[in-house]
């Protein structure tokens, strides 16, 4: 942790968050803190409740427990759109792009929550996103549905950035991508962190995630099994054995 005061301010706090699908408890009493400008990762195996956690934070799923943003509680009646308005943006695992629209239209819609700011401000952000993802600029007129897997992930991330998020939640950004593209995606995640946005990164690719993150949580069968600074987690024997493929990590 750097000594910067702003960096230590908790931005998103999650207390005893629980989600049930019928009788199945997908998430049981999860606690998590994301501080200003921090990159926090949640790692864990398939079905541990990682996507459920993000969906609940976003208001897509009904959940019990307490979530606060800037100290303000996000109660159940704060719906998805209102959470987006407060600066919470989720890049879902399925990307959820607008397939029959151009890359540029997808990006412009990313700034829908900022429509009151005027076009000039949104155009500036578009230019920044194009700087970060030159590939998207090349393909700006192409339909999103025709992009490759890596490009789709870039578009989903670019679209999220158009909203100028305060909390950026990334759900398995490396899922289904080739190793070379994964490296590129994580390089961009690291770069995003430098811009000051607070990031909650959910990943199965624990090695890459812990490398870029400040702090990590290990989620197992719906509860937080382990947490700590990511360097400590990466050095932890159990984590290394289970998630990093043995001693090599």
């Amino acid at each position: 942790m750097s000594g910067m005061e702003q960096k230590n301010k908790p931005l998103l706090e999650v207390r005893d968050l629980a989600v049930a699908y019928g009788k199945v408890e997908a998430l049981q009493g999860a606690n998590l803190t994301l501080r200003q400008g921090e990159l926090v990762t949640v790692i864990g195996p398939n079905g541990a409740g990682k996507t459920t956690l993000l969906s609940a934070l976003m208001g897509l799923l009904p959940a019990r427990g307490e979530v606060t943003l800037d100290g303000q509680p996000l109660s159940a009646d704060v719906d998805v759109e209102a959470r987006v308005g407060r600066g919470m943006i989720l890049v879902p695992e399925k990307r959820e792009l607008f397939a029959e629209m151009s890359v540029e239209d997808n990006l412009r819609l990313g700034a829908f929550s900022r429509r009151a700011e005027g076009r000039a401000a949104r155009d500036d952000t578009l230019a920044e996103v194009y700087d970060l993802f030159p590939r998207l600029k090349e393909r700006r007129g192409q339909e999103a549905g025709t992009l490759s897997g890596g490009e789709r992930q870039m578009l989903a991330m670019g679209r999220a950035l158009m909203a100028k998020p305060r909390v950026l939640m990334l759900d398995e950004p490396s899922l289904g991508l080739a190793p070379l593209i994964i490296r590129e995606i994580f390089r961009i995640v690291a770069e995003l962190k430098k811009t000051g946005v607070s990031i909650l990164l959910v990943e199965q690719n624990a090695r890459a995630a812990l490398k870029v993150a400040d702090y990590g949580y290990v989620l197992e069968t719906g509860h937080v099994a382990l947490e700590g600074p990511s360097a400590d987690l990466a050095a932890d024997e159990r984590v290394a054995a289970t998630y990093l493929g043995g001693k090599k990590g």
Partner: protein
Amino acid sequence: MDLQILLLLGQDGLTNGAIYALLALALVLVFAVTRVIFIPQGEFVAYGALTLAALQAGKVPATIWLAVALGAVVFVIDAAIALRARAWRRLPGLAALTLGVPLAVAALIHGLDAATLALPLQILLALAVVAPLGPLIYRLAFQPLASAPVLVLLIVSVATHMTLMGLGLVFFGAEGFRTPAFSDGSLELGPATLQYQSLWIVGVSLVLIVALYLFFGRTLTGKALRATAMNRTGARLMGISTTLAGKLSFFVAALMGAFSGVLVSPVTTLYYDSGFLIGLKGFVGAIIGGLISYPVAALGAVLVGLLESFSSFYASSFKEVIVFTLIIPVLLWRSLTTRHVEEEE
């Protein structure tokens, strides 16, 4: 058949086709955004025409009281929800939209002598009465069921149609009305005689279609509506409210329906229940477009208009049968060529 009859039928077909095209586009829009098959579309046609006729007769159209009443109900419900969430800041905007707009239009109608106004102003006033009914009806009948299956939405849609048609009888009585043409007379063009009103209908329809095209293609709001139609979850995650998109699509549909009514009322006498059949013909066009494609739906609607016009000449008593039979080969062809996709919840 000589050339003159051919031209006459063609003109008739295109004129009606233009109206059906407007309705077909509205149906596609509503279905794409909300998954509601918008049966009450025809009622907006009748309401638009009959409201205009009432204004021209110097009467206060009862539709305005429907708007005021629905607005008040929506205000009470949404204000209660806002208060429970302690969202005081939502109240002024809510009051302005649900109470302010209908009351302002009502005050205008009372304050102005609508019968003496110029026709364009009377039309604007009629649209201002009828179009707000769209989002109000969405709020009351469809928003609480936003995630219900298509069949449930269809049942509610039929119920809404019945209710509005019944209210139409109460509001306007059983007699039919016709409004004066936008401009009288006709244009001689070689062997063809073009009625000015037909030109108005086709011209205004084209302008509206272009306006819609620009709205969907160029504006952020229009793109947001298309985005909701394409990917509801994706749109919500960008802060595009499904509810707002639903209200907006119903507003556009009500506006187009009412405008269609205003356009056709100088060429056909409209009754409180005339809208249903007109709306159904737009629906045939929308089905030809698979309830997805705007251009195919519009072209399909024009085809319906032409088919109707020519079959009224050759087999006048089977006119409606022929038009609605068109749906069978279309559905057959659609079911053979499109992959069946399970409805996503």
